[in-house]
């Protein structure tokens, strides 16, 4: 007789799962101690082994697993996916998404290994462990990995051999069972159909990726759970697009950054990096500060010759856990983490430079405005009021921001757009400020020092009010902000006309253009022009994707072709995603550099026009009442669009509510008829329960201390209730009679039950009660 290989095969499958779990731990922890990983895997393995011992083996391994076991398996796989957001939120650290998915698979693999009594789970355990080994071997470079792979290979080979012998077990039977074999145990059918379907599905996916529309490919691509694969910023990602903080915290933080910088500098195209340097000037140095402090001569303190230490973080903290300083009097530098720190509502646009003329390739910075800044000094050191031009009807609400300058941005004074009030440090003279370009404030004849704060108060334009504004492009006098390469004008005008359709002149046309770009073009920050493809705009239209400055350029040129004065603006986009809840500030770094378009309102104000997907112009804060109102009307309009469906759902819901008792009764009667119970007693008890429900629905339920006989006889006293009296005796027998006693009434049991079901309905009980109360 062949030995029983089944337990060995199961144990081997579990072993494979444990090895793959170890390789996952190595990949996840990467550079940490492999023995610690081994400790963790020992824990997981022990749990799996305990479950393996506890879970009873099925009668036949070919049986379908029970729903409970399957549910528990799925639950084990879900644990890391559920736990990760909690971990990120509470502990502040986390794993990249792909590692979390691998953890989920590891759990599933171990759980399948623990339940390998079922053939299905055993095979799944081996298959998933193989995938995990391959995946972790690719992403992991740990020296232990080779050893783990070797062990897995040996164990896997053993498993294959054992499975081979196990399958032969059906043939190598003892002589006594040979007859049974001849009678024919049906061989397990190979899942040919399943394989064919799988191959077909794979072929469709590959075919779609290879030859399908680009949109489909890109959509599928961003769904892949790789670091940054979705285009979203993930602070826990390790590599790929939008590298997270983890990369900078690595051992060799410069490797990625330097490579990017080098490539950038080698490019013949205008360098954004250079432009930032040119615009913002040199970094902050304390010795540049020209400020002297008068000391009291009688004070024993002496002026230190040393440079005071910097603290360029937006706020101060004081820890109560300290040790005495090794050298009292000397602090440490606290480096700035950003160019500015913004306190206030985001998103926020900080203008830096505006461009007017475009020669087809290059934008020229607009000349500095000669107009004085219309600042009106407010008393008591409250800064300045900005005197506004005409046409302020489209503004709704105001906002306050505090911008802390941690690195000197040259002469630029970063302010929010649509400024109404300004306070810069302790400056109380209006002639300290001048316009760079209109709406872009700078310090006149000096640099803006680091370490000061700029308090801004600004208005916000309401798009709905803008749509009502008289915004006729034809009335605007031609100027530099309307210039366009002459040969481009007809083509661009035609394109713009196509995009705007039949919309009203003014803001609706502007919105139509931006909406078209946002809906049909894709933002790709990494895409840059090269020597081979110098004409970025042409490729932008071909690929329908590109960086933000091409979006802004396109928008500006399209608006100009329609007669709207527009300009390209560079600056910083203060993203709400970067908000630091701990400090209460949003840091602004060079990564937030952004280009956008601005169109000039006939009143003179430059309005931000954002056409790059993923960036949002701040909107006025809508009161809660208006939001609720809008939501209500939106819901109503949607309901009107799908009125038949809404009517049907309402009818069904109302019907269920109205006939709820009848539906319940129907369900109960159905239950009694279809599932009458194992014997007569069970059936009668079910009918008793139904009668209890019916009296409850009729509004006269049985009280808890009312006996069955009392209760039934209280109804059976009425004339014409003979069957209920008979049933009362039956109910007593069913509830309290011993098992070996025959029912009273004998053959009439079925008839009595049927009569009770059909006659003593909820409405009968209701009518009987009315009759009783009428008599009283």
């Amino acid at each position: 007789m062949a030995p029983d290989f089944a337990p060995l095969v199961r144990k081997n499958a579990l072993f494979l799962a444990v090895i793959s779990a170890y390789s996952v731990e190595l990949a996840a922890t990467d550079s940490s101690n492999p023995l610690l990983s081994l400790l963790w895997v020992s824990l997981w393995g022990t749990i799996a082994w305990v479950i393996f011992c506890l879970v009873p083996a099925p009668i036949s391994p070919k049986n379908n697993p029970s729903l409970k076991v399957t549910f528990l398996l799925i639950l084990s796989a879900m644990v890391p996916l559920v736990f990760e957001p909690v971990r990120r939120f509470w502990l502040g650290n986390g794993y990249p998404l792909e590692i979390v998915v691998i953890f989920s698979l590891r759990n599933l693999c171990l759980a399948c290994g623990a339940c390998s009594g079922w053939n299905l789970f055993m095979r799944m355990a081996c298959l998933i462990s193989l995938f995990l080994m391959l995946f972790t071997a690719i992403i992991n470079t740990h020296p232990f990995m080779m050893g783990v792979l070797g062990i897995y290979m040996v164990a896997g080979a053993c498993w294959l051999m054992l499975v081979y012998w196990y399958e032969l077990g059906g043939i190598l039977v003892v002589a006594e069972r040979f007859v049974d074999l001849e009678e024919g145990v049906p061989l397990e059918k190979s899942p040919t159909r399943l394989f064919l379907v799988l191959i077909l599905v794979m072929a469709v996916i590959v075919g779609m990726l290879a030859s399908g529309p680009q949109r489909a490919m890109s959509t599928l691509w961003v769904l892949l759970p790789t670091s940054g694969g979705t285009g979203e910023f993930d602070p826990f990602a390790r590599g790929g697009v939008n590298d997270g903080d983890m990369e900078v915290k690595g051992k060799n933080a410069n490797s990625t950054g330097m490579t990017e910088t080098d490539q950038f500098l080698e490019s013949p195209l205008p360098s954004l990096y250079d432009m930032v340097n040119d615009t913002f000037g040199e970094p902050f140095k304390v010795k540049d500060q020209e400020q002297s402090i008068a000391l009291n001569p009688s004070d024993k303190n002496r002026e230190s010759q040393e440079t005071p230490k910097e603290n360029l973080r937006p706020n101060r903290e004081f820890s109560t856990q300290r040790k005495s300083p090794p050298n009292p009097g000397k602090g440490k530098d606290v480096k700035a983490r950003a160019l500015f720190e913004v306190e206030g509502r985001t998103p926020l646009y900080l203008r830096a430079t505006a461009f007017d003329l475009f020669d087809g390739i290059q934008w020229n910075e607009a000349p500095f405005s000669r107009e004085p800044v219309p600042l009106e000094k407010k008393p008591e050191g409250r800064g300045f009021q900005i005197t506004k031009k005409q046409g302020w009807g489209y503004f709704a609400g105001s906002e306050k921001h505090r911008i802390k300058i941690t690195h000197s941005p040259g002469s630029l004074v970063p302010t929010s757009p649509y400024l109404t009030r300004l306070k810069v440090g302790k400056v109380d003279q209006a002639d300290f400020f001048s316009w760079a370009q209109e709406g872009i404030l700078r310090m006149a004849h000096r640099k803006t020092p680091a370490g000061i704060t700029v308090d801004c108060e600004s208005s916000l334009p309401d798009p709905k009010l803008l749509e009502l504004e008289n915004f006729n492009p034809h009335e605007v006098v031609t100027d530099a902000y309307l210039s366009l390469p002459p040969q481009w004008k007809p083509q661009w005008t035609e394109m713009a006309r196509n995009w705007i359709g039949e919309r009203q002149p003014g803001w609706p046309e502007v919105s139509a253009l931006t909406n078209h770009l946002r809906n049909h073009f894709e933002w790709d920050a990494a895409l840059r022009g090269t020597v081979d493809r110098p004409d970025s705009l042409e490729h932008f239209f071909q690929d329908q994707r590109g960086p933000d400055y091409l979006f802004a350029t396109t928008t500006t040129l399209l608006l100009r072709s329609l007669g709207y004065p527009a300009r390209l603006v560079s600056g910083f986009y203060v993203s709400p995603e970067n908000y630091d809840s701990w400090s209460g500030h949003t840091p602004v770094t060079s990564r937030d550099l952004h280009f956008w378009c601005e169109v000039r309102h006939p009143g003179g104000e430059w309005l931000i026009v954002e056409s790059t997907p993923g960036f949002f112009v701040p909107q006025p804060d809508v009161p809660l009442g208006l939001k609720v109102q809008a939501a209500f009307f939106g819901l109503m309009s949607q309901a009107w669009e799908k009125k038949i469906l809404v009517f049907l759902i309402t009818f069904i819901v109302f019907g269920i509510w109205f006939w709820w008792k009848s539906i319940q009764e129907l369900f109960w009667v159905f239950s009694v008829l279809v599932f009458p119970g194992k014997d007569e007693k069970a059936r009668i008890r079910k009918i008793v329960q139904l009668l209890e429900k019916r009296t409850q629905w009729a509004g006269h339920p049985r009280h808890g201390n009312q006996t069955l006989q009392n209760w039934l006889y209280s109804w059976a006293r009425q004339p014409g209730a003979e069957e209920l009296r008979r049933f009362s005796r039956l109910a007593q027998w069913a509830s309290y009679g011993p098992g070996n006693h025959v029912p009273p009434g004998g053959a009439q049991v079925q008839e009595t039950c049927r009569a009770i079901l059909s006659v003593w309905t909820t409405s009968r009980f209701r009518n009987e009660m009315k009759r009783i109360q009428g008599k009283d």
Partner: protein
Amino acid sequence: MIIEKHSAHLPPMEDSLDFLRAELNRTIKGKSEIVEMVLACILARGHLLLEDLPGLGKTTLAKALATAVGGNFARVQCTPDLLPGDISGFSVFNQKNREFDFLPGPVFADVLLADEINRTTPRTQSALLEAMAERQVTVDNVRHTLSPTFFVIATQNPVEHHGTYPLPEAQLDRFAMKLSLGYPGREDELLMLGEAIGDINQFANTGATLPPGTLESLQRSVAAIAVEPKVRGYLVDLGRITRGDSRVALGLSPRGLLIWQRVAQAKAFLEGRTFVIPDDIQVVAEPVLGVRLGLPNESSRSVIASILQKIPVPI
């Protein structure tokens, strides 16, 4: 007459019960519920305490019952000077054979009527303890077994308290139930008066009795009545709740619980059922609990009813 005197074969149980009912109802008019309780008590092999005013038929009922079940009847009129030996019996010296002969007392009857039991001293009351609980008496260190169907009907007058000795709790617990006959209705009294005209010995019984062994057979049948676990659970829950009730002087003892179950079995038997239902337990609750919870007569009914309300009935 359906039942022949000393018939060789036992009649069907239904006939025996109908005969007992008829005999008792003939004697005591308009008290069929009380008669049912008395029957339940005797079928459960319990002892009965009748508490009522004089002249309401306590003694008549006891005598009728004793006659109907076909056993010996003995009556003891309890007075303060009654001695224990007057009940259990005593030994006298026989001059002929020069030995002490035991003269059995009234406890050796099948039905003993202890009239106005609370008038005798506790010492004499206690003489009944062994007889009631174990159906045996010990005199001069010799144990004498009583009749297997030994049944005590004790009466007491609830009004006159002077010169009485209230029954101790230990003795009360040995009674299965306490009943009050109460006054009969007007129609029943008219009927009674009508029947008395021309009859010089109206309370004399007809002389018909159950055949020997019938009562014992009936009692065995009662003991075999089924009590399902959930009904037993209901009974136990009721018993336990009496022990935590502040109005109750003495919670139900396990012996009381056993008697309650047996009386409920007897009630089910009388109803013609082969199993006990919660209604049986509820119906006999008042007489069974009334004798052993130490409740005042005036509040006994309401307290017991509220106890029954507290436990939901199993279905």
